[in-house]
């Protein structure tokens, strides 16, 4: 396990370093002088030169890369162009909104996916099972931004049941939760399908296990066997599935934040691209990549701890 953890950790560090390298190349290849962009068209040549020296742009490329690299590992992602605030602060300020959105997405997918999968497994081969199967595939297939737009159209614009924009009043928890319902549905609906399929498959496996057969032989009520003894084991793989899922939900969250005009990292990057605020773009991309790598690392370590076969094949 120790060797596996070490290897996996090394891979994560390598991936993040590679991401930093690519982002540095990106900054370097963007047309235009960053100092000129930051100061605007009315700056004098002396001002530009001063800022170039302050930003370290006068140094050779490998020094610049080393500064960026060491800076990024210690959390220094440079300053925002407009307000000159540290990029890391700006990104971390928006991160809770995105995390709340993802947590909401997980809640939706678990709340709908587990019962559906369980129901399908119990009534295996029936019409209900087929319907759950088709629905699972369908919600996985349809892109989250289409779901977001249609949810906005149906529940916010036409029916007016739920608010269409924003994240709710700060400090008012119930208002914030109401604002979270639709965006998190758009983020989580696809994962209802994945989880329903996963739970169904593992339920079918567990229902064949000997301890369930024993419980049946003891004459325990059917309902109790299914929900108390089988389901508690069958939902375990879901946890690791979600470890991967959180990263994917990050992508959907970007769309949900734009469609529902919510604050968050996705909206931050999108706006930063439109205003050519490049330090924010690189900073936010780097922070989300690190988050993604960390979550995948956690999920992999969890699977490795539970299943020795994964460790040896790595």
């Amino acid at each position, binding site marked *: 396990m120790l060797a596996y953890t070490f290897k996996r950790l090394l891979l994560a560090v390598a*991936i993040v370093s590679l991401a930093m390298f690519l982002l540095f190349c990106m900054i370097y*290849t963007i047309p235009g002088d960053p100092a000129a962009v930051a100061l605007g068209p009315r700056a004098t040549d002396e001002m530009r030169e001063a800022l170039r020296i302050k930003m370290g742009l006068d140094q050779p490329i490998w020094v610049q890369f080393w500064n960026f690299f060491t800076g990024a590992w210690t959390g220094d992602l440079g300053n925002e162009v407009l307000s000159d605030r540290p990029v890391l602060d700006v990104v971390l300020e928006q991160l809770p909104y995105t995390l709340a959105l993802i947590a909401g997405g997980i809640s939706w997918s678990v709340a709908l996916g587990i019962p559906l999968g369980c129901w399908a497994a119990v009534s295996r081969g029936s019409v209900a099972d087929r319907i759950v199967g088709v629905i699972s595939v369908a919600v996985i297939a349809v892109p989250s931004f289409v779901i977001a737009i249609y949810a*906005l159209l149906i529940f916010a614009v036409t029916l007016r049941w739920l608010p269409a924009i924003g994240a709710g009043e700060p400090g008012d928890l119930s208002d914030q939760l109401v604002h979270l319902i639709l965006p998190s549905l758009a983020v989580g609906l696809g994962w209802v399908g994945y989880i329903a399929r996963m739970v169904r498959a593992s339920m079918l496996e567990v229902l064949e296990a000997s301890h369930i057969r024993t419980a049946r032989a003891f004459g325990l009520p059917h309902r109790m066997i299914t929900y108390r003894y089988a389901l508690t084991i069958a939902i375990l793989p879901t946890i690791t599935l979600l470890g991967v899922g959180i990263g994917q939900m990050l992508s959907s969250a970007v769309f949900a934040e734009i469609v529902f005009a919510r604050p968050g990292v996705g909206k931050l990057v999108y706006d930063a691209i439109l205003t050519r605020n490049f330090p924010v*773009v690189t900073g936010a991309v780097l922070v989300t990549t690190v988050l993604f790598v960390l979550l995948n690392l956690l999920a992999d370590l969890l699977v490795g701890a539970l299943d020795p076969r994964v460790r040896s094949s790595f």
Partner: protein
Amino acid sequence: MRRLLREPLGVFGLSLVVLVIFGAVFADLLSAYDPTRINPRVRFQGPSGDHLLGTDQLGRDLFSRVLYGGRIALFVALVSTAVSLVIGIVLGLIAGYGPRWLDNLMILLFDSMKSFPTVMLALALVTIMGPSLTAVMVVVVLVTVPGYARIIRTQTIAIKTSEFVTAAQSMGASNGRILFKHILPNVIGPLVILASMDIPVVIAIEAGMSFLGLGVRPPTPSWGSILNDGFSSIRDTAWIAIAGGLPIIITTLGFTFLGETLRDVFDPRLKGR
């Protein structure tokens, strides 16, 4: 094929796919309007006999735009999947058949490519390249190649020690000949099915990037940009958003149902992937 036609879901998927391809191929015959012609007198109209899906904020016929948007979507799906397949096959064969250190290095590269959230990758790339159809295709290739390369690599490793490969080696066949004549035909089957199941993902990437204004440039019609028009004027009329979303739903559902059935029929081993 006959087994596919016995599965109701497969038939349903196939008919949706045929419908979409038909609409895109015969777009100029089926539509009575130029998809980019602006006609301010008929803005924001609902569906009618003249305009089957209504008109958008500039008075353009949405049905024509949806049909021509299908051309963009299918073009991106076909071209970028083909490019990904070629790159994925070559990289996978090299990783699987080549020296150990090269294999490790490439696995690291594939894993790191996969570790970027797709949207972040797209946003970062567009920052460099600027929004264009090419940017969309580069994103698609970067997102899908690692998966293809990995599956080819695994299969190649499984096959390269088998007897017929050893026999070819002992008869003095070159590496290129062994790879393309003996190994490739044996590993390509599952790959084609995987690629067909990736088509909805590719279409979603194109539509998603065009929706964000990072893909196809206006006035070229794309399902994503129609959806974005609909989003901007969602309080005036629902029809534009519906017209933009519907083809995306039909296409992704069609290809997914078809792909799932194909996989179950041809290669049950891939199930659960």
